[in-house]
């Protein structure tokens, strides 16, 4: 039992250290689950190569219990958006996100996933995956070095450790609504923007929109 699991207000006698701990359910539950986050094995672009490099021997993601990368969204906890998100791809990304079981986390790896990056001005580029998904950790860099990605993992671990179980949406009663999947129209259609679109159509009367 690591000492950091123990609540600081309950001192453990010297001879019982490492064997007994007094803690809360939140703490021990999060301690377990943060050390076995399974990322989704899905690379989008350049950053994916650094993500793979992080998994290889020099950086060794396995030290953080994260080496089990699953290609199926239904077996994963963490989506690493490792690259440029394009308009053509975002419907699939949102669909995959909806398939990941709760509790789920999203990491925006690199400049493109965080805000469009160098390609932001492009006509087919979504400027940041956070326009469509809730992002938990942003990792800066283009591409982030493996060290930066590991720092992102540790930040995610901290975030998980601090989450009260009751506050996690997936652990509550009732079903969660899936996120709306954007539609590929003449341009990308974010369904939340639907009421505003008619004003952008030439020849239409903006008053009726």
């Amino acid at each position, binding site marked *: 039992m690591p000492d950091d699991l123990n609540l600081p207000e309950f001192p453990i006698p010297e001879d019982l250290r490492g064997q007994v701990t007094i803690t809360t359910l939140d703490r021990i539950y999060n301690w377990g689950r943060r050390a076995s986050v399974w990322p989704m094995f899905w690379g989008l*672009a350049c950053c994916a190569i650094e993500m793979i490099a992080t998994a290889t*021997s020099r950086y060794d993601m396995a030290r953080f219990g994260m080496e089990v990368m699953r290609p199926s969204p239904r077996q994963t906890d963490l989506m690493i958006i490792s690259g440029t998100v394009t308009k053509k791809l975002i419907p699939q990304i949102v669909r995959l996100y909806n398939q990941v079981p709760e509790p789920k986390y999203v990491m925006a790896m690199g400049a493109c996933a965080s805000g469009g990056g160098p390609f932001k*001005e492009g006509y087919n580029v979504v400027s940041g995956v956070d326009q469509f998904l809730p992002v938990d950790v942003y990792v800066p860099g283009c*591409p982030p070095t493996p060290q930066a990605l590991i720092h992102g993992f540790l930040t995610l671990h901290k975030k998980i450790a601090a989450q009260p179980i009751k506050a996690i949406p997936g652990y509550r009663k009732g079903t969660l609504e899936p996120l709306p999947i954007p539609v590929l129209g*003449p341009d990308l259609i974010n369904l939340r923007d639907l009421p505003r679109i008619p004003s952008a159509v030439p020849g239409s009367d903006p008053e009726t929109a």
Partner: protein
Amino acid sequence: MTEPRIDLQVDSLDVRFPGKVRQDSRAGYAGYIVQPETLVEFSSALRDQLGFRYLSSVTAVDYLAEDLMEVVYHAYRLEGGPGIVFKSQVPRQDPRLPSLVPLFPGAEFQEREAWDLFGIRFEGHPDLRRILMWEGFHGHPMRKDWHEAYYEEEVKPFKNRWPEGQVYRIEDKVPFGHNVSYPSEFSPEGWVPEEDVALYAGLGKIQGDGNGKGSELETEKIIINLGPQHPSTHGVFRMVARLDGETVVDLRPVMGYLHRNHEKIGERNTFLMNMPFTDRLDYFCSMGNNFGYALAVEKLMGIRPPERAEYIRVMMAELTRIINHMLAIGFLLNDLGAYFTPVMYCFNERELILDVFEAVSGSRMMCNYFRFGGVARDLTDATFSMVRELVTERLPRKLDELERFLVMNEIVRERSIGVGVLTAEQAIGFSAAGPVLRASGVPYDVRRAEPYSIYDRLEFDVCVRQHGDIYDRYLIRFDEMRQSLRILQQVVRDMPSGEIMTGKPQYQVRVPAGESYGRVENPKGELGFYLVANGKANPYRYHVRSPSFINLTSLAQMCRGQKIADAVVILGSIDIVLGEVDR
């Protein structure tokens, strides 16, 4: 292969087709301008009589001021030597051209790209659909009068950034909708998103001898999708296959999921600003991409880098080749079922080479190291001895080790020998490049065929294998790594001292008007940059002839008749990288 008859001089083509073909006489331009109605006749004469059997690149340029669309073709002889450029001009309103796919099947995807991005219709094309954007997208984005949603100004640097220096976020100024062009009859409620009907229908057409005829067991044909999220597609790539049982009847690659608009952005950027963008094309080989782009711009500017810079460039390009082929082998074995262990070994060596890159350029992957007329920083002695140790001691041993473990492996041989065969004729027709072409028995390597930099005085062999199957494409990468080491050993031996830059480094280079096509033998094949400059600070046209994209043209051919489990291996043996496929 039959020896082509060369009975006509290349420079007399305008005499042979009087009134139909003329020399391109614009300043800085070369080649021929062919009337659209003569295009097919002209190109078949090129192919059959003059020996230009390899159509390397097809692209388009939008000359807005002249109200013209120009389609530019680059063709080469497989015996080597300089190529031929020919163009065909059509009006901007409803541009139509005869398709060259019946003559050069390798033009298929490139013509689709020109249709998608420029709206040029190729008549007689077997499958003219959008390729990078989705069906239903409004407009043809590479046209000069098409503006993207975040459009600010025609060229960079944008006025609000420099010299005024007040940066604002463009989305605050152009809120949703303002620059997004919707067709006038569009209504969001009535919109039905385009399903892949045309794609699936195209697959149904090529059924061969009909449903199950000829076989004893009648089986139902099914269509399956692999990707864009699939562990074996090497990124966001999608294959749609029509299967008869387990056998692939037909297959279509679907791309564009990583279309990052390199070319549109590249035409807003200044020449030097494009250098870091080339890094992100084939993100395994950033140094090789820099090389091609630097060559294209240097051709326009008419400068050559000093001797030491040439050696450093070749050193970096060959180290890049080793990285790329290491990973290609690793991922291919991954697809064959050796889950990740070979990749781990290969990544180990990659890390050591990346240390060199980081030392010279400051970045592991995106090096941005080349400049026009040289390289950005000099090699230190410490870095140089790192390279020397790698290429003389470590890498040769590691290659031996990999070969010992992997080459004679029974499973690898069983699954790859005789699978996914591409014959020499097919490979040339499909404009395949690099290891894919050479594994099919065509000894064509740009480093030898049209030597650039210092490759004409380096000793190395053009690797070639004869069978054109997966195993040969796998082995040829070992061969090429050995040749790269040979080159590197010569470079390390002969590295001269001196300047690393011609002239002083400058932010804004002066590029005279004209066109140029710079091509290098990148690890994945011939990487070409087609540039049109109009004397301003930005390229008027910036096109990338990407080997991964064009090599995919032959994927369907290789997969037909194979098992679906082999299709992923065939894809792995082509060695694509999506940043370059979709650009």
